[in-house]
């Protein structure tokens, strides 16, 4: 393939390092993610997955390292500015706005992140269509505190979608769900990917990762130990060692 045929990467991470005191959580990580990719991120607990997405979404400062998004260096930007440029995320432990209803949760994102893309008149339509897609239409006026675990996960994804993202990072959206609920959330993520949204999925449920991902990256102790098609990464000796601890 000539360079002209390769699409410019949506997200480019260049030699990213993150230290907490003496502990190196991410060690010189570089990766490129092209637009439209379904990207699986795996690794044992404490390998740096969530740290990496915190660096992408801006919750952590990186030192040194560069995060490029759509050919723009977003490293110095605060999280809300990254969200407005099209990076949305869900949280490993759901963080709803608990004094609000489901609809109001989405309204925050529509008001503050999507205001450049969606006019005031279109907002309630957009909200309805997102809630319908997520299977939450009947819950629109329910307080967020009354949702079940799977509904909370869906609301997190819905709120992320309401920011009008180009890149969606799903941080263990399926943790603690039953197998039928896992399928439900996986189908949702698939349908989002079909709307030309690039998705980074962090997950421990291997079946889900295998089914979902175009490409998988495995982190261990802050380093990339394997990256490539899912089957290749799973077969990788070092990945198996990292997971089984042999």
């Amino acid at each position, binding site marked *: 393939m000539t360079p002209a045929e390769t699409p410019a990467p949506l997200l480019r991470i260049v030699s990213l390092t993150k230290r907490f005191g003496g502990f190196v959580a991410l060690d010189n990580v570089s990766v490129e993610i092209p637009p439209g990719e379904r990207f699986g991120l795996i690794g044992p607990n404490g390998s740096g997955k969530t740290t990496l997405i915190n660096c992408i979404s801006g919750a952590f400062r990186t030192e040194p390292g560069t995060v490029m998004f759509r050919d723009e260096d977003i490293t110095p930007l605060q999280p809300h500015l990254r969200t407005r440029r099209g990076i949305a995320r869900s949280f490993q432990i759901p963080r709803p706005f608990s004094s609000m209803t489901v609809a109001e949760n989405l309204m*925050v994102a529509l008001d503050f992140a999507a205001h450049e893309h969606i006019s005031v008149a279109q907002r309630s339509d957009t909200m309805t269509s997102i809630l319908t897609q997520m299977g939450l239409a009947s819950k629109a006026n329910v307080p967020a505190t009354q949702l079940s675990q799977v509904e909370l996960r869906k609301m997190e994804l819905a709120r992320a979608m309401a920011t009008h993202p180009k890149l969606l990072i799903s941080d263990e959206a399926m943790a603690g769900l039953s197998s039928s609920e896992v399928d439900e959330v996986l189908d949702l993520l698939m349908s989002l990917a079909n709307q030309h949204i690039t998705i980074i999925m962090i997950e421990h449920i291997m079946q889900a990762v295998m089914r979902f991902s175009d490409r998988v990256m495995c982190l261990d102790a802050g380093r990339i130990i394997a990256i490539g098609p899912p089957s290749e990464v799973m077969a990788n000796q070092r990945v198996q060692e990292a997971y089984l601890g042999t």
Partner: protein
Amino acid sequence: MMKRNGIAFWIGAAVFLGAAFVMTKVVANQYPFFAGYVILQFIALAVAWSILGGYAGYVNFGTSAFYGVGVYTSVFLVQAFGAPLLVQIATAAAIGALMGFALGLLTLRMQGIFFSIATIALTIIIETAVTNWRFVGGAAGIQIQRPPVTPPFDNYVQMLFFIQALLVVLAVAISRYIQNSWIGRGLQALRDDELAAECSGVPTLRLKLLACVISGALLCAIGAPAAMYLQYADPASAFNLNYSVSTLAMSLIGGTAHWSGPIIGAILLSTTQQLLTVTISSEVNVLVLGVMLVLFVVGAPEGIMGLISRLRRSRKEGEA
């Protein structure tokens, strides 16, 4: 619907101001104005406090710092230039805004109880500084001469009463605007979860700074006329922690989720306090304040407004 609410609100505000003005013309007894001034002052303080403490959830124990700075801004301006009352209030608002901005920068690093403790420290630092400042009277305090009253008023306390009523309307109008606008939604989001708010596009730092600046400017401006009201100022009373505790208690007892909560709480508590001060003693009202705060924290943690909306909800569910 929004429009109609807005018209109703402004009609209410005009009626309130009109009534306050007519009162200065009709009522001859001076006591209602002395007591009314204090009640209006607490309403305004509680409303201004809840912009930061209620909407944004940053509990500010430094009301007395802002209030005291307002008082001493007036003292300084009178001593140095003989400045008129409106200049005193406007300058106090500007200084309060600057103080609020500095306080807002604290929220960068401190949340929850740590922020609250820092605001107490702020009170002590400023009080200590003023205590050692001779020009405004130092620890001994200072007597202030009232200038002649400005027409159409014929009594200075009545004029102060009306001006405090204006400050109440200003504070309530600002608080109400914030609650109904995107600012209110953003503050509510960051109160619930700052990181989630930030990741939903909410500029949390900018909104916190805005809340601190507005709340600080109002708190200082509300304190400014107190120097003229008492004709005397001393650091121990101007920076009295009672202002912080009362204001916080009034807001919480009224409920901070809606702009009308602090008004209800302040009317209820400060009227009770005035009655107790007259009938029993001024020490008892501090005790009553404490007891009411405890009762509400246990029985109605979301205040009177929270209680009302809970009752309304359960009645609706009962009907359905």
